[in-house]
């Protein structure tokens, strides 16, 4: 990876910017890079936000393939409430990038028809909880079309879903809905934790002939890295070791990669060597990378913002245990949100899994084993 991912030094529990984001997410303005030049060749290394990386990925995909279209709520003139699609309508015109009526099932359902007709729709669900009206279209049609037609009809649809919290969002703006999608056969689910992966994974998602749920961690939109675009990082189906260690493996994705890295940093001060894996791909799950790490360390914990019961971490813990039981010195832990609805802004710091909570969890193991 051609990225210096240590440039991000923000403490794990401080949203940046720290103001409350509402449905209009005006805060996104402050960090949006207004440079909209098309990047045909690799640009000189520059400070790039995740928002900018996503924006550039969409721009490059639109420029490269005339079948790519981008639509959703407010993605045209406004450029999306998080400005991910900023400038694209102006550059490619309203026949490639446009504002759709405000109806998520309609957005997903029309994408099915468009993909059947040879397009590559990239659609946006404005916020995670607003993807729920599209659930039937995604689960009953988008996920199943290849299967029910024996591969005769494929749906190359990318569904972008800003997810997770830690942005001081009002109700229904901070859900982590990944388990709904990962438990649906036929869907590929990926989530970047940094700008370089945001670019590379989005390009690969759009190029995929299968439907991809592309989950964008809202609290990381404003994270900056120094990198050159375009950039190609690890393949879409692979996890990545982002910090090496020998005592324990932390499995994180999206917003919790930063949490895990903070925990590793703090752990090191106490003599604990923590390895951090950024899963990147939630479905499929990269058994190879994870098992190799866990077999070396003998201990693992999975971290996510979503509630614990029936969550993605349950699958990870079960799966990794099944495949590596004899290598494990301790049960795999889940450090997650509590089993409660996502709380209001003043309470989210108590809900979110913090680096401290991760370290506390690790202390619960009997380290003498």
């Amino acid at each position, binding site marked *: 990876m051609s990225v210096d991912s240590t440039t991000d030094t923000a403490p794990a529990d401080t949203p940046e910017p720290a103001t409350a984001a509402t449905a209009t997410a005006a805060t996104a303005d402050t960090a949006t890079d207004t440079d909209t030049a098309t990047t045909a060749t690799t640009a000189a290394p520059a400070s790039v936000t995740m928002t900018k990386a996503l924006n550039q990925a969409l721009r490059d995909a639109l420029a490269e393939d005339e079948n790519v279209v981008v639509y959703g709520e407010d993605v045209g003139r406004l450029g999306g409430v998080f400005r991910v699609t900023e400038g694209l309508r102006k550059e490619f015109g309203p026949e490639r990038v446009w504002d759709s*009526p405000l109806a998520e099932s309609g957005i997903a359902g029309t994408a099915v028809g468009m993909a059947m007709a040879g397009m590559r729709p990239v659609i946006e669900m404005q916020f995670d909880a607003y993807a729920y009206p599209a659930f039937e279209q995604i689960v009953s049609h988008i996920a199943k079309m290849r299967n029910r037609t024996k591969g005769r009809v494929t749906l190359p649809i990318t569904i972008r879903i800003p997810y997770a919290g830690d942005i001081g969002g009002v109700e229904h703006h901070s859900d982590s809905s990944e388990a709904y999608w990962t438990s649906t056969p036929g869907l590929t689910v990926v989530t970047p934790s940094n700008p370089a992966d945001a670019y590379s994974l989005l390009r690969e998602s759009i190029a995929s002939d299968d439907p991809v749920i592309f989950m964008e961690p809202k609290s990381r939109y404003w994270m900056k890295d120094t990198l050159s675009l375009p950039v190609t990082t690890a393949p879409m189906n692979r996890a990545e070791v982002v910090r090496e260690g020998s005592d324990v493996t932390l499995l994180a994705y999206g917003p919790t990669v930063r949490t895990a890295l903070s925990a590793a940093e703090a752990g090191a001060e106490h003599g604990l060597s923590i390895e951090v894996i950024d899963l990147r791909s939630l479905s*499929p799950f990269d058994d190879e990378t994870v098992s190799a790490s866990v077999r070396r360390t003998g201990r693992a914990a999975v971290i996510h913002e979503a509630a614990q019961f029936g969550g993605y971490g349950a699958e990870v813990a079960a799966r990794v245990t099944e495949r590596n039981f004899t290598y494990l010195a301790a049960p795999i832990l889940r450090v997650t949100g509590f089993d409660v609805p996502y709380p209001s802004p003043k309470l989210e710091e108590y809900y979110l899994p913090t680096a401290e909570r991760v370290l506390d969890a690790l202390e619960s193991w009997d380290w003498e084993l």
Partner: protein
Amino acid sequence: MTIDVPTTGRALPQLQPISFIGPDGRPTDTPTEGLTIPSDRTLTGLYRQMVLVRRFEAQVTHLTRQGRLATYPSAAGQEACEVGATTALSPNDWLFPTYRDSAALLTRGVPVSEILAAFRGDWHCGFDPQEYHTSPAATPLATQTLHAAGFAMASKLKGRHAATLTFLGDGASSEGDTHEAFNFASVWQTPTVFVIQNNQYAISTPLREQSNATMLADRAAGYGMPGIRVDGNDVAAVFAAVSAALERGREGDGPTLIECLTYRMESHTNSDDPTKYRDAEEVEHWKQFDPIDRLETFLRDRGVLDDDRVAEIAAEAETLAASVREAMNTEAEVDPTELFAFVYGTERTSLSEQRAQLEAELAGAEA
């Protein structure tokens, strides 16, 4: 502050359903909103196809009662909608059917065995959608209406001279996706024709408990698209209305909603008991509006159909019925390992592991 008051652009459909041929087989004097009756040649073709699909429905329903198919939703009585609308399509147009539209699939040229694959339990969709320009039949109600709108949007963006047609029922008209599809299609001005087959029942729930609208076609006005209501048992009216709407769409004038008044003569599926929600008198009453009888009378009166031609078509229908029985007698081979074949473009490692597990089980069972 001033508010612009629109002076044009909103019209409700006429109350009287458009029809050319009355239940008695005589020409009607109903206003037809500029539509013209199809030619004798077209009407004869529609007659033949309706006879064929009715025989098909009867044969499949019979086989289902014998327990040969898991379930079957028949469109008996709705032949004019199924055949009239589908025949209006050009080869480049696409059809987005529901589970009750086997007759439309047959009309579109899908082979019997491929239609029955789903009901026989072989595979969810037995035909190649690309070959017949026909989407897999949608079971979740109204979901296909959005696919039709989206496909038509792509057609429009790519400058193809092609439209989409989708069927839905009076029950499905209550679904949110129907509302969203009407709205998306109209805002985007897509070449889409929505045909509501108002057959009076959603399984057991009568229309009066489904909608309080004066008529379902009225809804079109709220979306800024034309709505029309036709006698859904007059194939001439259905064909004319759908043909005009498809052409309107292809010419760039956007979607149309067509409500076809018809009646489901059979139960919802074989597992349904219609005596619990409608009486025999009502079913008997609707027999006088039969779509095939009236067209036969009409064409005989016009001198374009005679006993010989009627017998010829009836014989053709018997041949079709025989092919249905044959299709059901042929046990389709299913390959258990195909479970894993079409989930993703590239088989995942975890699926390969599960495939190996199943293959080992199968090998063990053989040993």
